[in-house]
């Protein structure tokens, strides 16, 4: 089976870096970036199965970023993470994500890994 490739986007470097390392330990090849620009850049060079996005990102919301990424890489799946557990966010997130997942920070690594595997 092909290695699952995941792109992590969050403005907290420490968080995404550790998350990527832990997914790596679980056999998932994860790259990470901290800005939207870097994410687009990354998409130019590599293909990913799943993108894990923070809902709140500097200068652009996670949802907008998702739409833009979809246009670059159709067929990519998305998982959202957020520190804000409000119902409104949750509804918006799930509606937008469609079949995608919506996870609350702090994220449980096993369930994240399971979701990613399920999606691919």
């Amino acid at each position, binding site marked *: 089976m092909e290695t699952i490739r995941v792109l992590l986007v969050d403005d907290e470097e420490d*968080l995404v870096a*550790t998350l990527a390392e832990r997914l790596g330990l679980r056999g998932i090849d994860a790259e990470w970036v901290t800005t939207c620009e870097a994410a687009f850049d990354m998409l130019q060079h590599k293909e990913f199965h799943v993108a894990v996005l923070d809902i709140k990102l500097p200068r652009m919301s996670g949802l907008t970023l998702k739409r833009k990424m979809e246009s670059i890489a159709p067929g990519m799946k998305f998982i959202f993470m957020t520190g804000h557990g409000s119902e409104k966010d949750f509804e918006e997130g799930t509606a937008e994500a469609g079949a995608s997942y919506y996870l609350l*920070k702090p994220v449980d690594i096993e369930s994240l890994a399971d979701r990613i595997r399920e999606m691919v």
Partner: protein
Amino acid sequence: MSFLQRLKPEFWDYHDVASGPYRHLFNFRRIWYLSVLLTAGVAFIPVCFLAAIDYQVTQKAIESENVSRTSRLVSNTRRTLSFLLLERRFALQFLVRDNPLAALTAEGRLSEVLKNLQESFGGFTDLGVVDIQGRQIAYSGPYDLQDLDYSRQKWFAEVMDQGRYTSDVFLGYRQSPHLVIAVKHQPPDGPSFVLRATLEAERFHRELLPLEPGVGGDLFIVNRSGVLQTPSRNFGKIFDKVPLPAPEYAATTQVFETKSPGGEKLLIGYAYIAETPFILMVVKKKEDLMRPWYKARLQLITYLVISITSILIVVLAVSTYLVSKIHTADQRRVAALHQVEYANKMASIGRLAAGVAHEINNPLAIINEKAGLVKDLLQQENIEATRSKLLAQTDSILASVKRCATIIRRLLNFARQTDSTFEPIELKSIIENVMGFLGKEAQYRGISIIIDMAPDIPPFKSDRGKLEQIFLNLVNNAFAALNDGGHLTFEGRKISEERVQIAVIDDGCGIPPEDIKRVFEPFFSTRTKQGGTGLGLSITYGLVQEIGGAISLESRPGKGTRFIITLPLNPDRKKNGNNSRVVG
């Protein structure tokens, strides 16, 4: 505590420093002064005016009453005296017409006439008939005056000339005060002769005695040279000269005021008694006459003093009561405002909560991942190989915990309601602290924050908590006005040795000119639908005043708004400490 201090109402020394642009409305001592002055003025002016008029009118009435009473007394007495003398003169005239000279000089006839006169008119002492040569040819009376020669006497010349004569009172041969009345008769068929009678001066005095000139008054007769013809009470015995100016001739009764040689004010009434050398005088001391007036005056003044005192007491009591009530109401208002201010702060904290939650959640998420990674690493077999990596993870966990603690401490510091404490502060750190709460929001909205503090601003003493709330309110306001991608600038510079100025500038939607004047008013808000209470800027205004500063703003719709705060570098702590916060 002294009596005066106990009387001093609570509002007396109260200074409301946080009343904003309406501060003058809350100077209770001033309100009290105004109220007392106005009400006392309105009450006192008519009372004093009426009292003054009454004073004048009563004084004039009493004076005029005295004049008319004196005048009446003089007139009546003159009439009596005049009648007394005329009556006797007419009696003599009747006698000389009724009795021919021969009859009058007949033996015993004159004595009979004298006896009849004494019994009918009274007052006659003796009676004599004087012939044209001045010799007394017949005499009846207690003295031996038969054949006395009067030809060289003044009275004889006058009676021969005028036909009648009334003398002054004099002592004469008999050494007893008396006066002479003489009438001349010119019978058609014989020689002229004179009938001469003497009257006891005592008779005059007896006529005057029953007349009461009033307390301390004097009623007497003087001749035209001012010599007393009757005894007086205060101006000497009979034949003394009165120490008063001789009254000018007047046909009618006169009343005038003068001063006695002793300097006493006198009211003098006088009248010339016609066809006699006599002047009737009534002299009264003004002081005695005005005695009823002094009594009335004392009553008037007592009434006035009592009225003014009671009005003053009522005015003071009512003003103090009302101003105290206003003060109490204002205290409640201030307390309510403090509550609202506190609520505003809590609401700002509520608004910050989302940002803070995110701020805390991020390090928590990191801790979660790091701890998870540590667990992952520990589950691997070669622990020794991963030892350094494990250490790095724990370091990272500790750093994240510290980050959480900092955020929590900052929030707690901000929420804590303390008395105003002045401590050395640095503007830049305060602004950074405030932006620590709102930085994430700015970041997500793409709002650029520029902090430009001139390096020559020294650290100075101010109230950190209040400054933080001031900036937080202004930043919240700016964020509401700014579009995503806008700019928020803090500019600080020293404008003098004593003052520093901080401008908070946004390039947001701005404030319409008609609203600029009202933005600092409580409950003025254009964002009521978005949850604005209209208290933020009003509270900000109060807070700036409390730390001794001033706030103003410039704004252009569509261009942005600039709030300018001026703060003292050396605040006078006392001036600003009277109204320290009590809530919390």
